[in-house]
């Protein structure tokens, strides 16, 4: 059975990764999950400088989902390399660094620094962060900016460059094509939706930042729909994300056109989910006599 996924000049051992921001720097889950079984660990967003993150509370549960307002809290690229990469480098699974910034140069400088480390599989460019120059809207809402950013990142590395799209746009296929034109090797689809919960008793939003990112099973139908659309608009692989809790959910993404998937907040709910999703996909392939996980994509009627 062939479970591998080719992305650019790299190959992931299997299609089930753990999503950025939900798996820290890997070591946090070491005693609960066999990390070597993961297709890839997508790191928490790495920025040029360390970021403390947003004010508390940062989380609130919603019907079949959750809102987060972490605010890219991370140790910064230098400490990522010195403190976090040694552990990650020892793992058998691929390490993809999720890269974020407030302006184009930030992204480029982070990638430049990460290029110095030999054990990084590739980059996931998170264009969903609010961008100051872009009127507070995410950089990822503007196809011109996305194409230029991806092209410049492309110029810095031969490693796989994955572009992670925001669902909060009118036509996600336009941004996906921009990422492809810029030289991106794959699309991650989707980041969280914009959401807000108001504490009626306190008469204020639960999150001090007001809005947060909505994720979890609630958004799965949105993720599947956008994966379906994006995978028909580009010819590079698509990595489906959003609300995956089971192998059946992951298979919805693969049938919709994804080549791989990422598990986000389901790992919080039950750390055995990534492993069970992978074994469930393998069982499905056995049962349905599918030799290659990449063939699932073509089976949708």
């Amino acid at each position, binding site marked *: 059975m062939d479970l591998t996924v080719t992305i650019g000049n790299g190959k992931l051992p299997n299609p089930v990764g753990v999503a950025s921001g939900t798996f820290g720097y890997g070591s946090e889950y070491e005693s609960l999950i066999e990390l070597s079984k993961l297709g890839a660990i997508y790191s928490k967003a790495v920025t040029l400088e360390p970021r403390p993150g947003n004010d508390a509370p940062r989380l609130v549960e919603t019907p079949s989902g959750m809102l987060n307002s972490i605010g890219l809290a991370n140790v910064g690229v230098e400490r990522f390399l010195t403190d976090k990469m040694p552990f990650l480098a020892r793992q058998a699974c691929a390490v993809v660094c999720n890269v974020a910034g407030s302006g184009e140069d930030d992204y480029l400088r982070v990638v430049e620094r990460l290029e110095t480390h030999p054990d990084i599989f590739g980059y996931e460019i998170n264009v969903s962060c609010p961008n100051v120059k872009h009127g507070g809207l995410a950089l990822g809402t503007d196809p011109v900016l996305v194409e230029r950013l991806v092209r410049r990142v492309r110029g810095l590395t031969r490693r796989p460059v994955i572009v992670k799209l925001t669902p909060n746009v009118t036509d996600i296929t336009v941004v996906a094509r921009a990422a492809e034109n810029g030289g991106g090797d794959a699309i991650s689809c989707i980041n969280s939706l914009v959401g807000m919960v108001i504490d009626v008793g306190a008469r204020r939003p639960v999150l001090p930042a007001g809005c947060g990112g909505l994720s979890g099973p609630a958004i799965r139908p949105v993720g599947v729909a956008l994966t379906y659309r994006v995978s028909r608009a580009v010819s590079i692989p698509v990595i489906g994300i959003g609300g995956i809790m089971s192998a059946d959910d992951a298979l919805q993404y693969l049938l919709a056109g994804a080549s791989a998937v990422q598990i986000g907040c389901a790992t919080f709910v*039950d750390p055995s989910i990534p492993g069970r999703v992978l074994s469930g996909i393998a069982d499905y392939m056995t049962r349905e006599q599918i030799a290659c996980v990449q063939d699932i994509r073509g089976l949708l009627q």
Partner: protein
Amino acid sequence: MRQFSATVVSNISLCRDLYRIDFAWDARAVGPAPGQFFTVRVSDSTVPLLRRPFAVSGYASDTRTASAIYQRRGRGTDLLAARQAGERLDVIGPLGNTFPPPKNSQRCFLAAGGIGLGPVLYLARHLVRDGRDISLVFGARTSAGVPAAGTFDGLSPAVCTDDGSQGFPGSAIDYLNTLEPGTFQDTVLYACGPMAMLKEYHAIAATHQCPCYVSIEQVMACGVGACMGCAIRVTTEATYARVCTDGPVFDSGVIVWT
């Protein structure tokens, strides 16, 4: 820490507002220490979605039975209260840090408010077993929040109720303020309860210049330090600490009280 499927030993109501669940701790997991907590997946549905964290209120290492004292507050704890002896519980633990032990000469003053009872009770038993001299105060809104005396097995806390329906009339803080200042000499304060209460303990400790350790609650997603969701503001350079792994026990001097 480990994830395990625990068998519920018992799950009973202690008083109108509080319940206690006892369950078999996994033999391959380290036994939980005072201050530590565990998380439970209360439903296999997606509502509620996130695991719920509870402090360990006791642990019998011979039978490997752990307990927690909890309040029914919402759907998650409603579902927990419905679990019956013999049923299974998806547990991850032990999580978090522990209460630092007192110095040799120090006396221990332990204070719990409402659902803060569990971790404080576990610590109290632990200290008593070590032969320490402890004082215990427990505050609740009304007598409906005060469990039967047997819950405190052997310990005799000063019970306070806001409405005066049982024990000292007033909050645990009010009670502390009636004590002689000398009480806090060479004493370490341990407290768990609502943030507003912990803030006042911190103030009292600062006045008396005694160390104060508080166990903090914050909404959690992962419980293992991965999501950065349970942050609280601290005075150190890091600006924020994770309650789940840097805590839940903090030196009260490190917290930015607001």
